[in-house]
């Protein structure tokens, strides 16, 4: 059925971006913007792919992805927190490093297919008409992404660590005044964010496409950064943007499969156009939820 496959496709395509949004939400909540999310994701994709290819264990692959993304995010953190480097320029450089490293190291793996993660239908739930297979006949990383939403909400809004992380993004001096270490908290946020984003890359490589292609994230990391704004810096709204993005992409594939004569390049634009629209709608909101420290960074970044 068209709707079921569209929905299913939307979730499959969108999940990688969803992880990116989760990760970048955590990062931005501590007052750091990481355009290197793109790099973290692509590194995650390659790390997961290579590890799964050699060990036949997707779980190890996911772990490697998280480590790889975490390391790259740590580099970003060291520069922007430790050395107070310009966040946008550093992020772009990190993105560059990630793309360079993966295309260098991944050359021998290009277009070799692997098994990776397979679909696991959830009993009963997957039997629901129309949405059942779409929502509940998916790979394990999709299910994890469902659970990650309440988990992140809990972490950010119900725990003391979350309170301090958010406070760091609002006013680091206040955090410091209470004897907590805002720098450490930022490191935690940025690295954690990078790790989560990288799992999105892993999903792309070992669960969705089962292959490695150079530059396969193709802007998903940047899009995730943009969709964080649409989600109002809150994990609970991350799915909206991610799945519409995924839907745009799934629609493109479905139309192509049905032999609709529209240029692939036009169809490929849809997700990006959608992201621009999303930014537009986010800008219409009266209350802007951008963390105060991040606002300072964005406003002063052109000339620093």
């Amino acid at each position, binding site marked *: 059925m068209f709707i079921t496959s569209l929905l299913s496709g939307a979730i499959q395509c969108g999940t990688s971006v969803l992880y990116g949004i989760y990760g970048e939400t955590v990062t931005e909540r501590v007052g750091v913007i990481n355009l290197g999310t793109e790099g973290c994701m692509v590194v995650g994709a390659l790390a997961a792919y290579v590890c799964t290819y050699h060990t036949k264990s997707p779980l190890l692959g996911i772990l490697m992805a998280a480590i790889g993304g975490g390391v790259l995010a740590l580099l970003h953190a060291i520069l922007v927190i430790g050395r107070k480097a310009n966040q946008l320029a550093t992020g772009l450089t990190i993105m560059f490093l990630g*793309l360079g490293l993966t295309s260098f190291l991944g050359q021998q793996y290009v277009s070799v297919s692997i098994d990776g993660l397979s679909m696991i239908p959830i009993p009963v739930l997957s039997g629901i008409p129309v949405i059942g297979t779409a929502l509940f006949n998916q790979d394990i990383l999709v299910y994890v992404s469902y659970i990650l939403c309440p988990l992140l909400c809990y972490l950010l809004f119900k725990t003391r660590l979350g309170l301090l992380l958010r406070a760091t993004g609002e006013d680091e001096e206040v955090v410091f005044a209470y004897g907590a270490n805002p720098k450490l908290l930022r490191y935690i946020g940025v690295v954690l964010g990078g790790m989560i984003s990288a799992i999105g890359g892993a999903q792309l490589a070992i669960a969705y496409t089962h292959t490695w292609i150079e530059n396969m994230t193709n802007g998903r990391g940047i899009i995730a950064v943009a969709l964080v704004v649409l989600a109002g810096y809150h994990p609970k709204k991350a799915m909206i943007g991610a799945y519409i993005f995924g839907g745009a992409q799934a629609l493109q594939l479905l139309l192509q499969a049905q032999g609709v004569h529209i240029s692939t390049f036009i169809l490929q634009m849809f997700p990006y156009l959608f992201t621009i629209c999303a930014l537009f709608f986010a800008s219409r909101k009266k209350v802007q939820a951008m963390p105060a420290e991040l606002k300072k960074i964005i406003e002063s970044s052109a000339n620093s």
Partner: protein
Amino acid sequence: MKDKTESIKQALLTVLALAVMVVIFGVFLMTQGVNPIQIYGDMIVSTLGNSYGIGQVVVKSSPFIMVAVATAISAKAGLVNVGGEGQLAIGALLATFVAVFVAKSMPGPVGILLMLVAGALGGAVWSGLAGLMKVKAGMNETLTTVIMNYIAYDIVSFFVYGILKDPESFSWPMSPEIADKLRLPEIYVGVSIGIFGAVAVAIVTWLVLKKSACGFRLRVIGGNAEAAKHAGFSVAKIQMAAMLISGAISGIAGMVEIAGVEGRLRTTTGVNYGYYGFLAAWMAWNNPLAAIITSVVIGFLCVAGNVLEQSSGLPSSGTKILMALVLLGILWKGKGRKKCS
């Protein structure tokens, strides 16, 4: 006195940071089973050791200089324009259109001029869209410009695979070659006058920013948009103008790629140039004159990347790593003492 020793210290620190990164990359090369000293030697000899190599560096640097200057202009107005990539691509696309469909039967200089205008227009339209989104809706220009890069890439592909495709190219996605008379004059084998244009743009921009009342207004906006507003400036108009000029310059860089370097449009034309230009501007702290130097450095690294592939069989993307490392070194070192403008 104090100032002088301080600036020497800063320069030394920069060199040190870069040296460390070169060593790190060397270690990385060793893990890939090649001799880094030999590779580095090859890189330098083949780029700076002969006139062809130098010419290649100059050719590569020209678009970077222009995009860097473009980036600097928007940065002075307080905007982070990372869209040089897309603006260059659309500029190249429009210039190719003109060359292939309009200027074929025109006298060379007129045709070239028309291509130039088309390139500038293309870039300006692309940056102008981002500018509009910024001043009308307050959308973050960093994000919109990056996303529009991807869209621009798809648009170029659409035409290169479609109506702009060279009928004689079999399945290769590229436009027909533009007429010889539409090519920019060469000053050396393979090196067009584009480099003069790029340097001239940088110098003029520097002068305008430094000396003119417009430049002053731009700097006020970039320094504190609220202050500019309180001084009665129309921030939106000036930012929009800065975006348009910035995009036009990037678009011209795209036109120069077509008319001066490649002779035809491919999907790969100018890929990554926008990012390289952005980073060159950033390394130069948005000073157009310094951007000439940083652009040449990046141009050098690009050309050296081909050497990596030829002499060691390693993927040329290795240079991307080296380039990223060099940038990280500079980011690590930081701006040092605050410079007053």
